[in-house]
């Protein structure tokens, strides 16, 4: 009798590898890559509307002027010219931020990975929003932390609950390493953290001694209303993570971190070990694009487009979704977070939706640690044209209604124990 091993190296892998799991959701979303499926699943900007000629021109200028540098290794901190632009962008938050307070990473995702790498030892406690950005959870989980999730409502993270949890952790002798928040147009929940709660988190960080990680990919994608004050502008100790993925191009793979000097030094070590430097080519082209073109106008055009698509999606939800369903009405960002009535499971609905309606989305359970059942759906509105959004929501709504009818017939027709009591 022999025990069979699929993977002869099983005993050799690091324990963190066991946390990397395949999932039904990922399996099903593989189908969503097919062209006949309408997908609200990704978080992609609509690159089809980008000003291609500007990018061609920027690339050409870079190659003719400084092609050798664009093709060469660069510094681990990142290309100075690009960091100057970032400092200017960050000037809205704090005019004191200079080139030396910034390092460039491969998208914000790499910044999150580095933050996890320098702060989390196995078993350490970290605090996230529940729900939270799935990519951040993935980056954090590979360092094997204990994750505490704090619920989110219409005003962002429930800081009253955060305070209670911090007190509990203190009693248990656990020091949380950091609190990770996406204050503007939260992914997936679409909500924005109020100014009062931002201040509350910072007060708590003072009292309990944790680092605040402010992830802000969507801050500039605002449809209406005024910006809330950035946490970094209230407190210099905040780690701020930014990205060009939503305001320029995710294909460039460029993000950045602003952090206190001591933390920045550790991040630079992490950057050196990971990939020495981000793509010089991407950095030079992005620098040139920001220097030569009215990139702010391009963002304004994108925002106009997303505002319209968001409105289309909300209109379609009102028309086609079952009664009792609710959804956020975001003031910006890329996502609507819709919740089905009566606790219908959005993960199960996804199977039906792909099968019957050929519509995909990301079910709520993907955004929590250790949650199996959830009735919310993250719907992306930035990528599909309006007509497609309407058609997709129409089909999805029909499937949801069908599922709801089934659910009602099951739960109304069958109440265990009820008959017995009558007898």
């Amino acid at each position, binding site marked *: *009798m*022999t*025990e*069979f*091993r*699929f*993977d002869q190296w*099983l005993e050799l892998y690091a324990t963190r590898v*066991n946390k990397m*799991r*395949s*999932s*039904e959701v*990922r*399996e*099903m979303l*593989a*189908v969503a890559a*097919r062209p*006949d*499926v309408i997908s609200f699943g990704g978080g992609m900007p609509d690159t089809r509307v980008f000003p291609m000629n500007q990018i061609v021109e920027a690339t050409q200028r870079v190659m003719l002027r400084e092609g050798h540098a664009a093709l060469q290794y660069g510094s681990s901190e990142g290309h100075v010219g690009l960091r100057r632009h970032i400092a200017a962008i960050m000037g809205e938050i704090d005019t004191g931020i200079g080139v030396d307070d910034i390092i460039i990473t491969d998208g914000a995702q790499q910044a999150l990975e580095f933050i996890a790498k320098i702060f989390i030892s196995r078993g350490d406690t970290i605090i996230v929003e529940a729900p939270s950005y799935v990519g951040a959870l993935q980056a954090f989980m590979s360092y094997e932390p204990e994750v505490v999730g704090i619920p989110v409502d219409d005003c962002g993270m429930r800081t009253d609950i955060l305070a209670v949890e911090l007190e509990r952790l203190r009693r248990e002798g656990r020091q949380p390493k950091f609190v990770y928040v996406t204050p503007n147009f939260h992914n997936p929940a679409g909500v924005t953290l109020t100014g009062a709660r931002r201040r509350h988190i910072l007060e708590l960080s003072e009292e309990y001694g944790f680092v605040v990680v402010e992830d802000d990919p969507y801050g500039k994608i605002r449809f209406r209303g005024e910006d809330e004050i950035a946490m970094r502008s209230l407190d210099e100790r905040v780690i701020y993570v930014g990205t060009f993925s939503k305001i320029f191009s995710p294909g460039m793979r460029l993000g950045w971190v602003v952090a206190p000097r001591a933390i920045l030094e550790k991040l630079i070590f992490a950057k050196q070990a990971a990939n020495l430097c981000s793509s010089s080519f991407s950095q030079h082209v992005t620098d040139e694009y920001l220097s030569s073109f009215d990139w702010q106008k391009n963002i304004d055009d994108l925002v106009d487009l997303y505002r319209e698509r968001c409105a289309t999606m909300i209109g379609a939800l009102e028309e086609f979704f079952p009664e009792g369903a609710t959804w956020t009405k975001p003031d910006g960002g890329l996502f609507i977070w819709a919740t089905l009535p009566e606790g*219908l*499971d959005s993960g*199960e*609905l*996804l*199977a*039906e939706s*792909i*099968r019957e309606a050929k519509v995909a989305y990301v079910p709520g359970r993907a955004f929590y640690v250790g949650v199996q059942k959830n009735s919310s759906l993250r719907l992306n509105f930035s990528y599909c044209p309006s007509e497609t959004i309407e058609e997709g929501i129409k089909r999805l709504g029909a499937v949801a209604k069908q*599922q709801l*009818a*089934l*659910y009602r*017939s*099951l*739960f*109304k*027709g*069958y109440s*265990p*124990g009820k*008959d017995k009591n009558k007898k």
Partner: protein
Amino acid sequence: MNEKIAVLMGGRSLERDVSLKSGHRVYEALREKGYEVFKLDVDENLVENLKQNPVDVVYIALHGKYGEDGTVQELLEIMGIPYTGPGVYSSHVGFDKSLAKEIFLRKDIPTPDFFTLSAGSFREMGAAGALDDVVAKLGLPIVVKPAGQGSALGIKIAHSVEELPGALIGALSYDDKVVLEKYIKGTEVSVSVLGEENPEALPVVEISTKKEFFDFESMYTMGDTEYFIPARLPEDVLKKVQDIAIRAHTVLDCRDVTRIDIMVDGDGNPYVLELNTSPGMTETSLLPMSAAAKGIDFSDLVEMLVEFVLARKR
């Protein structure tokens, strides 16, 4: 050995990803063996593609709906292209757990007690009112499975009457028809059967999972599940399990290869759960594992399946 082979993979079933993994491995194996081989991700151009690139054999590495249920098999019959695996009837019946179990019962092949219900029976006929009777007849726990779905997708288990509606909603998301089956406590095993005239059973694989049953995640996540070949069962029980697998293969008129999933209760009685007509060929699949235990490596196994087709052609 100049036969031209198309490996059909992917498609739009919920098991697309698994199928791509199976397909890539099969493709590599056939290339290694010297066949002229190309991959085809199945979409609406399948027929057109096959007409423009005539092949000698189609290797079906599809899983799930349309690939495993007789649909693609029927198309290939119409086009006159020989293909690997069981034919139209066997695929059709094998993919429908309810139909397969009905046939097993009629042929005295033990299978756990069960009922079949459709989404329509709940929506149109108030079937929920009969769930008390289902529980009274099958006992608890009850396994709820989509009738037509592979890779354990959508399989739920209800430990109490209260859990039954939720389990039904879950399973009905994957198919409009579900099988409610008595849960057999015991050893979960899987047997692959090769051939047609005198089919032969490969060594019995035991699946020992930390979870209650071998679900989708344990199937494709390393470390969650342990496998033993042969299964840790007495010699006579192993023999009984293999015999029953061969009988299941035969009564559904199967050929080439099938994988039969079986539960063995505490007294050594085997119960057939289902028969798969397109077993997975991924790195963590049971058929290649079982073949390896018999000294048949992956590329030999793949070639053997192609040889079965070529023999039929001759």
